[in-house]
């Protein structure tokens, strides 16, 4: 048991201490993870208000389930698994609301199934105007590819750990990450070509989104 505790990462030990009643341990844990978690949520849902709500929901769930916490893996996999589930719930709710709001009962198959209102091409282009070409390209990635990239960048999780967090296979994670890197590199190259301004890259992005191909 002692050996198992020694092999745990520092954050897992902090979580165990919080589970056992140490509130200060939670403060330290929170300070370590608040930035990566907030950025993961913000880049995923691309809406500051929704990201703030989800941020609070993730920590609330963690607090509510602390009694059942067992330090078997890296703490970040536990935290981001909760975050992954919260964002999935968010996208499902958003999709249902959009279906309910559609007055003409249009064919659901003809719509893009899992893109929230604020991620539709018009909203996305507006959002893209406010940020760099890289972040705009990141926002234009399919949700699963974006999530895989964010999990690796923000938390340093390995491919296997990301697979555990997102409940998919290792090969699927590799494939998603490979596509994400390729597209993001392409957007970086576009901004580095002399005479090609980031604003122009954003226009290209808007065109590709409207046309439905990346």
């Amino acid at each position, binding site marked *: 048991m002692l050996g198992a505790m020694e092999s745990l990462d520092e954050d897992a030990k902090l979580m165990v201490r*919080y589970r056992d009643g140490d509130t200060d341990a939670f*403060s330290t844990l929170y300070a370590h993870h*608040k930035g990566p978690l*907030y950025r993961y949520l913000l880049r995923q849902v691309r809406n500051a208000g929704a990201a703030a709500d989800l941020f*609070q929901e993730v920590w*609330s769930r963690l607090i509510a389930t602390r009694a059942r916490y067992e330090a078997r893996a890296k703490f970040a996999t536990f935290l981001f698994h909760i975050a992954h589930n919260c964002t999935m719930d968010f996208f499902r709710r958003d999709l249902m609301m959009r279906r309910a709001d559609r007055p003409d009962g249009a064919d659901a198959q003809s719509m893009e199934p899992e893109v929230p209102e604020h991620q539709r091409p018009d909203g996305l282009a507006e959002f893209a105007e406010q940020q760099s070409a890289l972040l705009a390209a990141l926002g234009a990635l399919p949700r699963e590819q974006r999530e895989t990239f964010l999990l690796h960048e923000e938390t340093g999780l390995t491919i296997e750990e990301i697979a555990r967090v997102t409940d998919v296979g290792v090969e699927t994670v590799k494939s998603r990450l*490979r596509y994400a890197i390729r597209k993001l590199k392409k957007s970086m190259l576009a901004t580095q070509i002399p005479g090609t301004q980031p604003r122009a890259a954003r226009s290209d992005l808007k065109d590709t989104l409207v046309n439905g191909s990346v």
Partner: protein
Amino acid sequence: MDQSDDLEEYLRGDTALSRRYRRESSPAPPHVLDRRVLRLSRQAQRTTQRLSPCLQPLAFAACVLLSVALVLAMVFGPQAAKRMDDNAPRLVRVAARTDVTPNVSLNRRAPLYGSDLPRTRPARVWLADIAALRRAGRNDEADAEYRRFRSAYPGYVEIGGTDHTSGALVIRP
């Protein structure tokens, strides 16, 4: 092949892509969120501390005990016994009413099993008395006596079908 090289290079870390992402993406949660989450964590701990861990098994045991007591009270308690007492006569009464003949007065309680009248005389003696009343011409009294006899001996059968009367009432098997 190039793609898998890209992935391996990226996974080794510190690529231009990672550096650029970190440079450009550094938003942090608003302070109001920090305060809210930290308050939540403290509140949750206070709520837990109210019920000390050593009291939890006791609380569980008390719940189980109360539940068992409640079930036992419902099954074997005085109310249950009373209900069982009520049921039995009700069933008997229903059974008894199916045997009620149209001649029995509604004001008179129907016999439960056989007769509720005392068998004051042996059947043969009683029939002999009835026959004597008829012979004396007291037919009304004889009829009333015969009805009483029938109530007392509803299943009485006289073998041979002896005629005890002058013709008005004949006992037959």
